[in-house]
């Protein structure tokens, strides 16, 4: 009887312990979210407004955070992208853009969410960044951003399968390898607006 009671007690302790751990990470995610919204860089007032401006600026801060090996800033930027996506008014888009956005939305949001919830796991964040970059390229091509962007390619990432990213500068600052290989890659396309 006593052993059973102790065993049961143990299991409930283990259970609550697990639960606490999760709550804590939820709280962290919350604080990340808050600070992300505060630190979102304000956009260039001269640039032409585009519905995806917030998403692009979130993506660019994410890219810079990854290039600096800063997983926490990357998570904040990921959350900022999710927030910007939630603010998009889909009904105001033209038919073509609406179609593309609908195709990209679920996927891109999932990547941004994962990046946001994986502070401390930069390897995982970079995997999602790779896939998010494809979505971003399609969005940027269709929507425009009001600024000239560069489509850059790193041939070594993902077991030498290579991966693209989008940058606001011509200069290569590799977000996939960070400081380990900062200049690996080349600009493949200039996306003019």
């Amino acid at each position: 009887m006593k052993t059973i009671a102790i065993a049961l007690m143990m299991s409930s302790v283990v259970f609550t312990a697990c639960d606490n751990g999760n709550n804590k990470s939820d709280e962290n995610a919350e604080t990340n979210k808050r600070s992300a919204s505060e630190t979102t860089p304000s956009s260039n007032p001269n640039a032409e407004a585009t519905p995806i401006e917030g998403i692009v600026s979130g993506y660019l801060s994410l890219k810079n955070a990854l290039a600096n090996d800063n997983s926490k800033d990357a998570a904040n930027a990921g959350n900022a992208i999710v927030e910007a996506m939630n603010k998009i008014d889909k009904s105001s888009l033209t038919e073509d853009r609406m179609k593309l956005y609908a195709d990209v939305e679920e996927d891109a949001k999932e990547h941004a969410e994962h990046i946001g919830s994986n502070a401390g796991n930069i390897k995982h964040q970079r995997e999602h960044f790779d896939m998010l970059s494809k979505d971003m390229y399609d969005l940027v091509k269709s929507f425009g951003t009001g600024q000239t962007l560069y489509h850059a390619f790193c041939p070594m990432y993902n077991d030498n399968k290579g991966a693209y990213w989008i940058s606001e500068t011509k200069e290569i600052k590799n977000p996939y390898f960070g400081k380990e290989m900062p200049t690996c890659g080349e600009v493949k396309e200039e996306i003019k607006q």
Partner: protein
Amino acid sequence: MSRIKKMLLAILIILIVIQFIQPARNTSGQVLQTDIVKVSNVPQSVQTVLKTACYDCHSNNTRYPWYANVQPMGWLLARHVKEGKTELNFSEFGAYSTRRQANKLRAIENTIKDGTMPLSSYLLLHKDARLTETDKKEIINWALQAKDNLEQNKP
């Protein structure tokens, strides 16, 4: 009665009471038209592995172990299944956009390769979900192939 005895009794009562709070079961009992086996060419051997090792958390049909009836284990399981399905649901794979399908296949390849899936905590209790090297190779090859097919068929 000593304090310890009283405490144990209280814990016992709580444990008995929570047994009556059973979470809803994840068992639709049917294979949807959107199931991955219907929308993608999955080799029989891979199908078997997916069903034994992955479907419990990543589909609409979980095969529940006996301890799912014991709380709080059942709650823990329910949460795992819910999380697993949000990440990837093989039963609804066909409803994903092409780009999401391709990304999921890539994620399958990577998680199998680096051993993050199946979760080691899950393998502790589910020995049949342990993947052999052959299983892994077959899944990875299939995922790569299926992803190539998707990308070729893209409009």
